[in-house]
C-alpha cells in the first residue's frame, strides 16, 4: 500500500464546507435504531463545538425508503425533498445537513437531476406549491452529518479523553471503516476522498489515534438494500453480503467497525448474531464479535460520553471488550437502565455469540 497515492486522491476530493449555521434533518431508521447517535451529534456540534445547528419539528422522511423500494415515483420523492428544502429556507438557513446516507444520496441525486433537467425542477416547484403551498428553494450547501464530524475531527481530537488506542498494549486500535454506498459511490465528487478511497471516516480514525484496516472487501455493500431486507426470503442475500465482508476482514483482527450510514451498523451488528446462530461462526476475539458503531458513537466515546448514554447497549455485539481496551470506565449495572434509572429488562442471551 502506497499511502502517498491515497493522500493524493484525498487531496483531490475535498470540499469546502461552511463552518456554521446548518439546518439539520434526522434519519428515519437511525431514530429507531440508534436514537442516541443523533442526540450525541447535536450535543457535540452545539455544545462541545459551539456551532449553530437548527432542527425543525416539521421535517419528514426524505422518501428514500419508499423511492428505493419502488413504492413512490421519483416526482413524489422530489416533492418531499423540495418540502424539506422549503422548511430550511423558511427557517432562514441555506446549509442543509442530513443524518442519513440514503437521504444524502437522494438529495444529491435530486439536486443533480434538477440541474440537468430544469423542466423537471419547474415541475416539482409547481407540485410543491400545489401540495404544500410552499416556496421552492434549494440549499446553498448540502452535507452529510459525517462530513461535519470529519470537518471538526481535529477539534474533537483536542477534547479527546480516550483515543482509539489499546490502553493495555499502547498500540492503536485496528478500525474498519465502512462507508454507506450512497455517500459517494453515485457521485464521487460529493464525498470526502471520492468513491474508491473515501476519507470521511479514515480521517476521523486517524485523527483519533486509530489504525485503518484496508481489506479486500472494503468497498462492498453491507447488504442492507431495502428490497433485500423487506422481503424475508431475500434476507439471506443481505446477510450473505455482510458475511462476505466479515470473512474478508477477519484475518486483520479488527477491534472496531465504524460506519456512517443508518443501515450498515445495524446489519453489520445484527447479522453477526444471525451468522453465529446459523453457522456457529463468530468474529473478533473470544467469540464476542466485532462492534459496529456509528461515527457519532465513536466520537462520543473518544470525547468521554458515558457508553450507556451513547446507547451502546442497543448493539447486539457486546461493547464491553472494546470499552476495556480503550480504558473507558463503565458501570455494568447501568447497562439496561433507562434515563430515569428505570430497569429496561435484560435481553435474552444468544446461544453462540458471546455477551457480557
Amino acid at each position, binding site marked *: *500500500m502506497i499511502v502517498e497515492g491515497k493522500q493524493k*486522491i484525498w487531496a483531490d476530493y475535498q470540499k469546502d464546507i461552511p463552518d456554521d449555521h446548518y439546518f439539520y434533518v434526522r434519519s428515519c431508521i437511525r431514530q429507531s435504531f440508534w436514537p442516541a447517535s443523533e442526540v450525541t451529534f447535536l450535543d457535540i456540534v452545539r455544545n462541545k463545538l459551539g456551532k449553530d445547528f437548527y432542527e425543525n419539528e416539521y421535517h419528514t422522511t426524505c422518501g428514500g425508503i419508499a423511492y428505493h423500494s419502488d413504492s413512490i415515483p421519483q416526482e413524489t420523492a422530489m416533492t418531499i425533498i423540495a418540502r424539506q428544502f422549503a422548511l430550511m429556507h423558511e427557517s432562514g438557513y441555506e446549509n442543509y445537513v442530513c443524518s442519513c446516507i440514503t437521504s444524502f444520496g437522494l438529495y444529491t441525486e435530486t439536486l443533480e437531476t434538477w440541474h440537468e433537467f430544469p423542466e423537471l425542477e419547474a415541475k416539482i416547484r409547481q407540485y410543491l406549491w400545489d401540495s404544500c403551498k410552499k416556496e421552492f428553494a434549494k440549499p446553498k450547501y448540502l452535507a452529510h452529518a459525517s462530513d461535519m464530524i470529519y470537518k471538526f475531527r481535529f477539534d474533537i481530537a483536542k477534547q479527546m479523553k480516550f483515543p482509539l488506542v489499546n490502553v493495555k498494549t499502547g498500540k492503536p486500535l485496528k478500525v474498519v471503516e465502512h462507508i454507506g454506498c450512497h455517500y459517494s459511490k453515485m457521485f464521487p465528487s460529493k464525498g470526502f476522498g*471520492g468513491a*474508491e*478511497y473515501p476519507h470521511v471516516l479514515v480521517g476521523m480514525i486517524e485523527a483519533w489515534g486509530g489504525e485503518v484496516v484496508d481489506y*479486500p472487501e472494503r468497498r462492498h455493500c453491507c447488504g442492507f438494500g431495502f428490497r433485500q431486507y423487506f422481503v424475508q426470503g431475500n434476507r439471506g442475500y443481505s446477510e450473505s453480503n455482510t458475511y462476505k465482508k466479515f470473512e474478508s476482514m477477519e*484475518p486483520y483482527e479488527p477491534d472496531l467497525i465504524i460506519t456512517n450510514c443508518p443501515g450498515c451498523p445495524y446489519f453489520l451488528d445484527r447479522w453477526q448474531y444471525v451468522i453465529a446462530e446459523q453457522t456457529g461462526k463468530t468474529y473478533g476475539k473470544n467469540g464476542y464479535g466485532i462492534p459496529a458503531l456509528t461515527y457519532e458513537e465513536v466520537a462520543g466515546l473518544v470525547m468521554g460520553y458515558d457508553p450507556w448514554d451513547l446507547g451502546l447497549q442497543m448493539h447486539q455485539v457486546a461493547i464491553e471488550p472494546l470499552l476495556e481496551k480503550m480504558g473507558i470506565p463503565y458501570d455494568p449495572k447501568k447497562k439496561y437502565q433507562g434515563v430515569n434509572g428505570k430497569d429496561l429488562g435484560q435481553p435474552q442471551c444468544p446461544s453462540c455469540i458471546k455477551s457480557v
Partner: protein
Amino acid sequence: MKENIIIIGGGAAGMEAATQLQKLGLTPVIIEKSNALGGHIAQWDKLFPAFHNAKDVVSKMFDNVKDIKTYLNTEVTDIQRNADGFHAVLSNGEAIDGKAVVLATGFDLFKAERKQEYGYGIYNNVITSLELEKFFRTRKDERINNPKKIGFVHCVGARDVKVGNTYCSKVCCTTALKQACEMKEVFPEAEVYTFYMDLRMFGPGYEDLYLKTQKDYDVKCIRGRVCEVSEDMDGRLVIKAEDTLFGKPLRMTLDLLVLMCSMEKNKSIDKIQQQLGVENNSDGFMQNRDMYLGMNDSKQEGVFVAGTCTAPKSLPDTIGEARSVAVEVFNYVNNK
C-alpha cells in the same frame, strides 16, 4: 529549392516525415520538447506482432535524421502565420520561419491513477504497460518479483465514458498479448491472464500472435473488465471481474497487475494548436480535413498532421502517415 518545414515533435512520425522531406529536397527542422528524439517508441523494448527490437527500428530512424536540424529540449512558444508561411518562436529564444508546419506531436499515455479502482499508485503491484516495457529493457523493477500470477487489464482509459474516452486505443490489445507472451518467457512458471473486452487483432500477423498466445504460451484470456482491485494481508492483489463468457463473476489473487493504458491527445501542444486554428475531433485528438483523402491535412492551409496526434495508431500506421505527409507538404510547397 530550400524551404524550411517546421516539424513539431521528434517521435516516429516527426523523424520519418523529416527524413522523407529531406529526400524530397526540402529542409525539415525538428522541434522536440524532450531531451532526445524517438518519442514513445524509444521507450519500447519489443514490437508486436513478431517481437522485433524497437531499438533496431528507432536507431535506423536516428541515422536517417542525423543531418537534419533538430532542437532538443525545445518547445514552440508562439507561432504566427505570415505571408511566407509561419514564424515560430522557440523556448530557447530562437525563432524560425517555415513554409509549412507538420504537427507530429503524438500522444500522452493515459494516467492510470485516474482509474482509481485499479489502485495504480496505491497498491504496490499495479504497474502500467509502459513500466512493464521498461522492465523488459532493464530487467529491473522492484515490484516485479518472480510473480506467480499476472493479470493484464485491457482498455484502461479507453472505451470508457467515465474517463471521457469513448474511442478504442487500437494497439493495447496486441500489446497486451505481446507483453503476456514476454512475461511467460521471463517467468515460465507464472500463470498469465488477460482481461479483455474485445480482442482487436486488426493487423497482419496479429491474429497469429493471438493464436500463439493461447496455444504456445498458455495465456488465459478472460472476457471481462476488472472492476475492483484490493490488496490482501500479504500485499497481493485481489481482483474482481466478470467472466462474461461464463456468465459468472470471478475473483482471483494476483501478484502483478499490468494496466494497458490507452493513448490520449498530447495536451502540451494545445496552445500552439489553438494559435494555428487546428480543431479537435470528438475524441479530443486533432481533426484532420478528411478521413480518407485528407488525413494528413488539417483544416488550416499549410498546417499538416501526422501520426498519433489525430488518433491512436500503431507504429506502421504512424510511419505510413509520416511518409504520406511528406508528399502532401512537398506538393503544397511546390504548388504555392
